[in-house]
């Protein structure tokens, strides 16, 4: 299912990589490279999901996530952390703030990433439904 995805990523090469992948699956990708513009971009674009980097110029991903949660109009925005900066503290902070997942970029391929986003948003990637007792 095609989605509107807001990608907040300051590394242009990585942004380009994810944009290519997600667009090739029919999604619309809006890219923002500056941390300080992120919250406003969430508000303006009402994306289906926000892919949020942690290390960003201006404002870091966790601050952005906190601000989104504190803003009445966008507090329910779906956010997936997509980063190469992982320590346990960051992961638990992000999950406590309601991030759907904390994905380490280097651990997955672009297609695994887009499948994962789809499944986090409730798109079934499997055609067979297993029924158990």
């Amino acid at each position, binding site marked *: 299912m095609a989605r509107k995805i807001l990608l907040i990523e300051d*590394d242009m*090469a*990585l942004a*380009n*990589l994810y944009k*290519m*992948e997600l667009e*090739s699956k029919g999604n619309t990708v809006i890219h923002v490279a500056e941390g300080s513009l992120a919250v406003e971009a969430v508000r303006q674009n009402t994306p289906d999901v926000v892919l949020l980097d942690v*290390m960003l110029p201006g404002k870091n991903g966790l601050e952005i996530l906190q601000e989104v949660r504190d803003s009445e109009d966008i507090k329910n925005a779906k956010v997936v952390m997509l980063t*190469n*900066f992982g*320590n346990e503290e960051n992961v638990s902070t992000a999950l406590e703030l309601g991030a759907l997942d904390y994905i380490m*970029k*280097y651990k997955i*391929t*672009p*297609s695994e990433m887009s499948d994962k986003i789809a499944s986090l948003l409730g798109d079934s990637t499997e055609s067979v439904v297993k029924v158990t007792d």
Partner: protein
Amino acid sequence: MIDKDFKLLIANPACRKMLGISPIKTISLFDLMDAFKDYFPIEEVISKVFKTHEADKVSEVKVDGKFFQITVIPIEVSDGVPGVGVLLHDQTEEQNLRHQHEGFMAMLVHELRSPLTVIKGMADMLLKNPERFNEVKRNEILTQIEASANQLLEMVNTTLEDAREDDSKFEIHKKPSDLNTLIKGEVKNYEGLAKERGLSLASKLDPSLTPFNFDPAKMTQVMNNLLSNAIKFTQEGGITVTTKIESGNLVRVEVADTGEGVPADKKPQLFHKFAQLHKSNDPEMPSTGLGLVITKGIVEAHGGKIWVEDNKPRGTRVVFTLPL
């Protein structure tokens, strides 16, 4: 020093300075407890040592932005009268350095992962679904892969140069070892590879060279680097390793090849930035270019020197010396 009545008998000037107590003031145990109040129950450790007569040590006690290691040991204040000694070690600087180092490593790992993720991801996209991309797009992807790989290489170069400035990276552990035997072993290890490439590999070792102090693990690394380089850059002919005692207190080691040689203007760069002179396209001989920089670091850490000479009539001779 504290006696059994918990009276503080002596506090040296360093201790007073650490706790911020005037050098002339008479001080009591309360001053010590006061200094650690809100941070650490030092009196509990003191009581415990009185009871158990066993020393106790607590590290990284944070007091007012500083870090202390507290060691409490059982002592005798006078004949048969028990007491304890409290040793305070200010660890603040060590802690700061350690945190800086950890922070630096975390940043470095993050910085290295970004271009790697791009290279891996782009290659994966191209391999899995080439039909999804037209030629223009494919070129764009390949150009990006190359750019990210260059970025990565540049970062590794810079980091390595920084590391070279830090001598501790080439910390060596010398012990009496036999260099000739080590070289013989290394030559044997590389015989197969040389043979595969149609090259000869020989050694001429000075029999008067007896065991002397050097780090055998690090020297093995040096010989590995030099031999693999020599084999990599030699198309025909062969490689000869020579040892010779010079002027009584130096051993000179040469790895001579009959490769295409190093142009004079490139010689100074060889050990400097590990700018690869030859791009090796041979997948069996991958090259990071790191070898010579590390080699130089190891040789210099032994108090030796390393340089490159022309091998007449053809090829290169890498020469290094080690003090005996």
